[in-house]
C-alpha cells in the first residue's frame, strides 16, 4: 500500500515554513522581525505569537500552528516561539517516518506515549521548587524570559519591577487560593526618555486628565466616587416632547435641565467625595461646581479602569443614583478612599495617579522608551515576564532553561525507546530527536557551533542519567554569550515548569492534529455559479 502521502508532505511544508519564519527569533540572541501591514503600520517584535498573529496565513495547516502559538500565549504567556518550532520539527520527522512506510497512526501513538513520558520525567526529575532556590529565582525566571527581548540590557531592573508588580496585585479568592491577576496591572506607555526611567507605581495610574485646568492638582486623603453615567444637562427620553407656549417657560425649562444635574453633583459632593471619576461626559457648565468645592473631576475614563479602581479603593461603581425610595441620593458608603490622588506630567500627557488605595494594593507600570515601536515591544516583553512570574508564584515549580530540559528529555526518551519492542519505538526516537531542535536553534542563532555544543551537552546529560554520582550534571545548559556549556542552575536561568510541560503537550497535540489528516477537501467559494447536475452532465463530468 502506498503510505507516502503527498498531502502530508504538503502540510509539513507549510508548517515548517511558518516555523522557519520565527526560528531566528528564538533565544537570548535571537533577532527581531519588522512587520509592515498594508496601511504601513510597523511592528517590531521578537514575540512568536505577535509575529504569527500579524502574518496573514492562508494555508489551513499553517493556521493550526498560528493557533497553537496563540493558545500558548493565552495559557502560558511565554514560550510561543519554541512551541511552534517543536511542533514543526515533530511534523518534519513524522514525515520522514511515513516516507519509510510507517503508518501515521503508529507515529501518532508513539508521539503520544513519548509526550506522556516526557511530562512525567520533567515532573519527577527536572523540576525545582521555589523553596529550594529562594526568592531570587523569581527574578531570575523573569530575567530569563526577558533575555531574548529588547529590554534584556535592563533585565535586572525590569525583572525586579515585574516581581514587585505581581506581588502587589495578589489576592485570595473565595476558595482560599492565592491568585495573581496580572491583568489588574495597568501598563501604560509613554515615549520619551530611556527605558531605564520606566517606573512602577504602587497605585493606579489613569490615562486621563482632570476635566478643567482650574481644578486642584493634588488631593491628599482623597474620597473617590466612581460613576458609570454622565453628568450632563438632562435630556428627555425619546417620546417625550417638550412643548412650550410661553417664552418665559422656555427659560424655566432650560434652567431646570441644568438644575437636575446640579442637584446630583451637590449630592455627590455632600457625601464627602472630592475625586469624581466618570465614564461619561461632564458638561463644562457643571465643572464650575467641582472647582468651587475644590474637588477633582475626571471625565471619559475607561469602564475597565474604573472597575479596578473601585475594587482597589473600596468604592462602588454606580450606574445610577436612584435609591430604593424612588428618589436620587448618593450614599457615603459608595465612596472609596486613597491616600493621595495627583496629576503627574509624563512626556506630553498628564496622568492621574491614585496612591495608597484603601481596600487592596494596586500596581501600574509606566514604560518609557525612545519611540512607539520600542514601547510596544517593551509592553509585550513585560507582559511575558509578568506571565512567567505569575506562573512561578502560583505553581512554585521551575525548570532550568537554556536547552537543558530538552537535551535531558531527548537522552531519556532515547533510552526509553530502546526498551520498547513495538512499532512506536521509532516514533519515540524521532520525538527525542525533534526536541534537540531547541538547543540547536539557540546555538545557531548565537552563531555558535551547534553540533559541537549539543554533542557536549548530550554527553553531560547522558552521564548524569547513567551515573548517580553525576546527577548534578542534569542542570547543564547552554551559555550563549561564551559559547560554552555551564550549570544553568547556578547561572540562574529558570523557566516555569508549567510553561515547559504545557508547551510540550500543545506542540504534540498540534502535530497529531495535522498528522491525522489524510485528505483535504477544498470547497469552491459560494459566489461561483452553482453547479447543477445539468451543467455537470453537459460537461461530461459524469462519464464514469
Amino acid at each position, binding site marked *: 500500500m502506498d503510505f507516502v502521502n503527498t498531502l502530508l508532505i504538503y502540510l509539513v511544508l507549510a508548517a515548517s515554513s511558518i516555523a522557519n519564519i520565527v526560528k531566528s527569533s528564538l533565544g537570548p540572541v535571537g533577532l527581531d522581525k519588522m512587520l509592515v501591514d498594508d496601511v504601513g503600520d510597523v511592528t517590531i517584535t521578537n514575540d512568536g505569537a505577535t509575529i504569527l498573529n500579524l502574518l496573514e496565513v492562508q494555508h489551513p495547516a499553517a493556521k493550526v500552528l498560528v493557533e*497553537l502559538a496563540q493558545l500558548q500565549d493565552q495559557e502560558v504567556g511565554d514560550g510561543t516561539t519554541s512551541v511552534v518550532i517543536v511542533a514543526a520539527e515533530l511534523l518534519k520527522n513524522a514525515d520522514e517516518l511515513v516516507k519509510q512506510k510507517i503508518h501515521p497512526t503508529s507515529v501518532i501513538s508513539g508521539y503520544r506515549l513519548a509526550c506522556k513520558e516526557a511530562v512525567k520525567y520533567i515532573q519527577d526529575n527536572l523540576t525545582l521548587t521555589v523553596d529550594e532556590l529562594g526568592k531570587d529565582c523569581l527574578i531570575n525566571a523573569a530575567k530569563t524570559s526577558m533575555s531574548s527581548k529588547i529590554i534584556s540590557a535592563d533585565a535586572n531592573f525590569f525583572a525586579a519591577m515585574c516581581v514587585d508588580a505581581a506581588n502587589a496585585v495578589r489576592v485570595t479568592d473565595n476558595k482560599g487560593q492565592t491568585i495573581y491577576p496580572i491583568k489588574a496591572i495597568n501598563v501604560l506607555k509613554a515615549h520619551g526618555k530611556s527605558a531605564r526611567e520606566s517606573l512602577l507605581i504602587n497605585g493606579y495610574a489613569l490615562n486621563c486628565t482632570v476635566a478643567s485646568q482650574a481644578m486642584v492638582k493634588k488631593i491628599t486623603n482623597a474620597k473617590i466616587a466612581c460613576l458609570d453615567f454622565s453628568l450632563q444637562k438632562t435630556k428627555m427620553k425619546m417620546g417625550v416632547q417638550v412643548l412650550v407656549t410661553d417664552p418665559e417657560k422656555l427659560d424655566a425649562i432650560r434652567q431646570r435641565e441644568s438644575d*437636575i444635574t446640579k442637584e446630583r453633583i451637590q449630592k455627590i459632593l455632600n457625601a464627602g467625595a472630592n475625586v469624581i471619576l466618570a465614564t461619561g461626559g461632564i458638561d463644562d457648565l457643571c465643572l464650575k461646581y467641582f472647582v468651587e468645592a475644590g474637588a477633582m473631576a475626571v471625565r471619559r475614563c475607561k469602564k475597565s479602569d474604573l472597575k479596578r479602581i473601585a475594587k482597589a479603593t473600596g468604592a462602588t461603581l454606580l450606574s445610577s443614583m436612584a435609591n*430604593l425610595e424612588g428618589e436620587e441620593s448618593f450614599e457615603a458608603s459608595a465612596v472609596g478612599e486613597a491616600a493621595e490622588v495627583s496629576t503627574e506630567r509624563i512626556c506630553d500627557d498628564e496622568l492621574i495617579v491614585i496612591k495608597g488605595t484603601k481596600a487592596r494594593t494596586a500596581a501600574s507600570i509606566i514604560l518609557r522608551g525612545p519611540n512607539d515601536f520600542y514601547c510596544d515591544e517593551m509592553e509585550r516583553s513585560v507582559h511575558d515576564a509578568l506571565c512567567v512570574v505569575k506562573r512561578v508564584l502560583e505553581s512554585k515549580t521551575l525548570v532550568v532553561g537554556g536547552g537543558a530540559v530538552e537535551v535531558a528529555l531527548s537522552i531519556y526518551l532515547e533510552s526509553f525507546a530502546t526498551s520498547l519492542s513495538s512499532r512506536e519505538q521509532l516514533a519515540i526516537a524521532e520525538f527525542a530527536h525533534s526536541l534537540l531542535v531547541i538547543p540547536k536553534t539557540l546555538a545557531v542563532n548565537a552563531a555558535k557551533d551547534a553540533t559541537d555544543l549539543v554533542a557536549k551537552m548530550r554527553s553531560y546529560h547522558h552521564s548524569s542519567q547513567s551515573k548517580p554520582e553525576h546527577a548534578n550534571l542534569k542542570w547543564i545548559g547552554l551559555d550563549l554569550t561564551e559559547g560554552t556549556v555551564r550549570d544553568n542552575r547556578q547561572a540562574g536561568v529558570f523557566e516555569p515548569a508549567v510553561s515547559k510541560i504545557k508547551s510540550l*503537550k500543545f506542540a504534540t497535540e498540534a502535530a497529531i492534529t495535522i498528522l491525522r489528516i489524510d485528505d483535504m*477537501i477544498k*470547497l469552491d467559494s459560494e459566489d461561483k455559479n452553482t*453547479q447543477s447536475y445539468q451543467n455537470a452532465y453537459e460537461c461530461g463530468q459524469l462519464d464514469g
Partner: protein
Amino acid sequence: MAPNVQPKMKAFETKSKPAEIRSSNIEAAKAVADAIRTSLGPRGMDKMIQSGKGDVTITNDGATILKQMKLVHPAAKMLVELSKAQDVEAGDGTTSVVVLAGSFLEAAQKLLEKGIHPTVISESFQKASVKAVEILEAMATPMKLEDRHSLLMSATTSLGSKVVSQHSALLAPLAVDAVLKVIDPLKDHDVDLRDIRVIEKLGGTVDDTELVEGLVLDQRSAGSGGPTRMEKAKIGLIQFCISPPKTDMDNQVVVSDYNAMDRVLREERAYILNVAKQVKKAGCNVLLVQKSILRDAVSELALHFFDKMKIMVVKDIEREDIEFITKTLNCRPIASLDHFLPEYMASADLVESVPTGTSKVVKITGIQNVGKTVSVIVRGSNKLVLEEAARSLHDALCVIRCLVKKRFIIAGGGAPETELAYQLTQYAQGLPGVEAYCLRAFAESLEVIPMTLAENAGLNPIATVTDLRNKHACGFKSSGINVRKGAITNMLDEGVAQPLLVTTSAITLASETVRSILKIDDIVNALY
C-alpha cells in the same frame, strides 16, 4: 463500463442508456464511499475541509464530512442523505453505513455485469438484509441499563476513533451518566437528547470537560456591582422586560412645564422600582430574563436597583432555551408582573458565576425537584478540537441512547460483519437460483468493514481478514480485529462493543439506499 445486457434492437438505440445511468450512479456513489473510507475505525484518519470562505473543519465523523462536501451528483447526494439518516436513527456508525453502501454497490455492479437484472439483485439484497438482521439479533447479548460496564464499553468504542480518544476515560462515563440521568422512568425506551445540553467553551483542555447536575447558562451575570454568587437561591424566570415602557410611535408625552420634567424622571424611577420591589417581595434573589429585541430586557436603572437589593440578574436568555430551563428548574416562565408569585419560582442551593477560560458561565446546582436534564460543558484548547470534541460526545451520547432503545450489545472490531458474511454465505448455499448468487455477493461485500479496519491500522488486510474468517468458521463469534495489538482477539474481552441498533440500522439503511439506486434507470432534468 457495463456491457450491454439486453440484445440490441434497431428501433431502440438508446436502450443502453439505463445501464449507463446506473453505472454512472454507482460510480458516483462509490467515489463518495471511497472518500471517507480512510476515516473508519480507531486508527482512522481525519479530513481537513476548507470551506469557500476559508473556514477549516477537521473531523473524523462521516456525517460531518459529507455534510460539508458540496456534492453535485444526485446519487452521491443519496449517500449523504443515507449518512444523515444513520445519524438521526443511531447517531453513530455514519462512516460505516456509507462504506457499506459503497461496497454493496460494487457488488451490485459486478452482478449487473454478469447480466443479472437489477430488480432481481434488489430483491435478493432486500432478503439478505432481513436475514442479516435476524442473524445479528441472534448473536447479540442482551444487557440491562444497570450494567454500567457494558455501557461504558460501548461509549469508549464509539470515542475510540476520534481525536479525543485519549480522553475517553473521562468522556465515556460522562456520556453514560448524562443519558442515564435523563431517562424518564415511565417510558424508558427512548431518550430525548435535547434534555442534555452541551455547551462549548473555548479554553482549557478536553480534560476540563464536566457534567453539571443542574443548569449551566452561557450568559454571565449582568450588572457590575451585583452579587455573583447566591446561596439558597430562589430563581424566577421572566419573559417580560424591566425597562421603561415605550409609548407607541404615534403617542407623545408632552411636557410644557419644568415641574413635569422632574415628574417624568421620577415616574420612570418609580415604575422600575415598583417592579424591582415586587420581585424582591416574592422572595426572588436570582432573576433570569428572556432576551428581547424590542427594547432593553433590563434597563441600566433596573440593574442598579437589583444590585442594591442583592438580586443576581442573568439576562439575554434565548427563547428556545426557556423550555429546557423550565424543565430543569421545574419552574414556570412568568410572563407578566402580576404573576410574579413565589409558587412559580424554583429553589436551588447555589447559583454561581464561574470563570471558564476567557468567559464566564452561570452554574445553578443543588436544584430542588430537579427535572430530568443535565448540562455538559465541553472544553477544548482550540476551535477545531472543541468542535470535534462536541461532535464526538454527541456520538457517544447517541450510542448510549441506542442501548436504551434496544438493549442488546454486539462485539465491535468487524466481528459482526465477518460473522454475517460467514452465516449468509452458508444460508445462500441452501437457496436455489440466481438469488443465491446475489446473496453470496452481498455476504462478501460485508467484509469491507474488517478489511478497511485492517487497512487503516496499517495491517495486512488480506492476511487479517482470512484469519478472521477462519476464526468465525471455527465458531468464535466475537472475534474481531484488535487494532491496538494488531491481532485477532475476542472483542468482548477487549471491551470493544457497540449497540445492536447501530449495526442493524447501518445494514438496513445501506441496503435500502443501494436498492433505490439500482432501481433508477433514468435521470430526468427538470428545468427550473
